[in-house]
């Protein structure tokens, strides 16, 4: 009896599995949808009647920061890890009764970080430390919440304000269709044509039925590798009210946070169009980095013995993230307006008077924006 044919069986099985998997993954084809004009599509996004949704989002960030290895991150789920890598996020939002209720949960291995917003009230839940922080919504949280959901992220690029400011130096194109989370979508491609921006193109997939953006991909100028990609993996236009309530569980540490002084450190927009910057006061990078990774209340004991030797050898004590950020700051470029740091998508300027400017713009363009802003300050 010939037995050699049996050795072909595992090969055939592998081939069948690869073929099957490819077929399943390739089934997200371009659906046939009624034609829509560009204006119609932009209006569809702006006038979307959807007030409630829930789903899971896959978020990939590659703005030029090194990816943190999974081993050696002791902190568990943490919003700062959103700076790079791939993440799974559950988003629930409900604005049906006029109040903004949202839950953004970073689902990490064995841990979770939840941001629960009930209009102006805010809960931050860290499952690793069993720590619930209670405060009010500040500008930084707004930005963070906006980054987690494609629907919100897309508004940055397609929202009424963005369109008003950017319409004169932007090419919009549509005509393609795709499927996201099992829903038929129109594809809107936004290509900035103004000099100075680092954004090469933005691709937004808009649900044909509801007008909600379900996927946003941001390509840096001259690159076909996305810097930001946020896409719903699963979505429903319902929000479970139970998910939008947060009560600190028994046994958890509850910290009441002082409301941040927004009058002293307002976040404001500077400039306009694609190179517009966000500016924030009272930012001391050294203090910020030192504040990461350490416990909220009690200071860490100084290392002793072997630990002290190891800490001295390591040079920069702290978490891998802290080391990365310190390296990032050290690699910054000194200019008359302050320390400039840039990546393939984002540029930041830290001014000597502790202001932080950030923009999707080239360092030169951002420095010019900052200089103009400071000149404006002196005039007034």
């Amino acid at each position, binding site marked *: 009896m010939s037995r*050699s044919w049996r050795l072909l069986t595992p090969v055939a099985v592998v081939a069948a599995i690869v073929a099957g998997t490819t077929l399943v993954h390739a089934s997200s084809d371009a659906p046939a949808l009624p034609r829509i004009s560009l204006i119609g599509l932009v209006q569809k996004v702006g006038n979307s009647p959807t007030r409630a949704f829930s789903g899971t989002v896959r978020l990939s960030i590659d703005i030029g920061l090194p990816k943190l290895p999974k081993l050696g991150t002791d902190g568990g789920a943490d919003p700062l890890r959103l700076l790079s890598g791939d993440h799974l996020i559950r988003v629930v939002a409900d604005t049906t009764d006029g109040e903004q209720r949202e839950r953004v949960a970073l689902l990490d291995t*064995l841990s979770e970080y939840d941001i629960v917003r009930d209009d102006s009230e805010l809960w931050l839940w860290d499952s690793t430390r069993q720590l*619930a922080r209670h405060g009010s919504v500040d500008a930084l949280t707004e930005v963070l919440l906006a980054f987690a959901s494609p629907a919100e992220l897309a508004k940055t690029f397609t929202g009424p304000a963005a369109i008003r400011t950017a319409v004169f130096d932007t090419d919009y194109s549509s005509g393609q269709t795709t499927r996201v989370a099992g829903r038929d979508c129109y594809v809107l491609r936004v290509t900035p044509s103004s000099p100075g921006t680092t954004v090469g193109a933005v691709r937004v997939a808009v649900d044909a039925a509801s007008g909600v953006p379900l996927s946003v991909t941001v390509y840096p100028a001259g690159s076909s590798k996305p810097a930001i990609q946020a896409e719903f993996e699963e979505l429903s236009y319902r929000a479970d009210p139970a998910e939008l309530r947060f009560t600190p569980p028994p046994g958890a540490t509850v910290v009441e946070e002082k409301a941040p002084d927004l009058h002293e450190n307002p976040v404001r927009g500077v400039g306009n169009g694609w190179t517009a910057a966000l500016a924030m006061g009272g930012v001391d990078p050294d203090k910020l980095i030192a504040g990461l990774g350490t416990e909220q209340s009690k200071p860490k004991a100084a290392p002793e013995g072997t630990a002290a030797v190891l800490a001295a050898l390591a040079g920069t004590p702290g978490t891998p993230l802290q080391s990365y950020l310190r390296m990032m700051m050290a690699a910054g470029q000194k200019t008359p307006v302050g320390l400039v740091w840039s990546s393939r998508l984002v540029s930041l300027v830290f001014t000597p008077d502790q202001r932080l400017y950030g923009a999707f713009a080239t360092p030169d363009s951002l420095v010019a924006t900052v200089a103009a802003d400071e000149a404006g300050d002196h005039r007034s």
Partner: protein
Amino acid sequence: MITVPSIELSLTFRRRRNLLILAVLALLPVLVGVSVRVAGIGTGTGTGMLNQVAGNGLFLVFASLALTVPLFLPVAVGAVAADQVAGDAADGTLRTVLAWPVGRSRLLAAKLLAAVAFAVAATFTVALSALAAGAALFPMRDVTLLSGATIPLSTAFGRALLIALVVTCCMAGVAVIGLTISTLTDSPATALAGTVALIVAAEIAGSLPQLDAVQPWLFSEDWLAFADLLRTPVYWGTITHSLWVQAGYAVVGASLAWARFTSRDLAL
């Protein structure tokens, strides 16, 4: 009635070395529980779940599985599976066994069953020992999920059982891989080293950010996804993916083991 599967099962579960492995696995959660009870765990150290053991004994089940799933459990399960065929081949019993009036396919199926049964036994040994130690050393109360919501103890028992089943499926995948390697060699040491090396290599590949393109297809990648059962709502995506990946490896491994075991010349 004596059947081939029952013989293989009793061989696996009566071998002194295998019983010793189960005993060590049973001891691990007890050691963790006692050290938490005696020494205490400060907040901010260890895995997040370990922090909660002192307040709730049921967390010893989750923490013990989280601690053993990356290394102890797969190595134990893989070691026993790797011995199934290669061990028999080395001590000469394989020729006797093959003289039984039983087809080689049925014999391999019986060995596969025994290896998978050991995976089930190993996982439940850790889980049940952790449950017993947790109940004896700590209070048992309502469970705070990763999402911050609290579920009653009875529901939490259901979640713990589901978690044990998900881990069992992952370990059954390791058992099939170990058995496959076992059919490729006549030396139990080679089979054992090969299985352990494969597990470690898969985990190292899973921890390197540069290899993220292949990571979703590593059998070890989502072993810790069982914690998704401790969320509200339960997130099934990663668990489902992980189970499909395990099934894929199992089908490929079993077919390779079958092709090798039924076609190779053993009548030396």
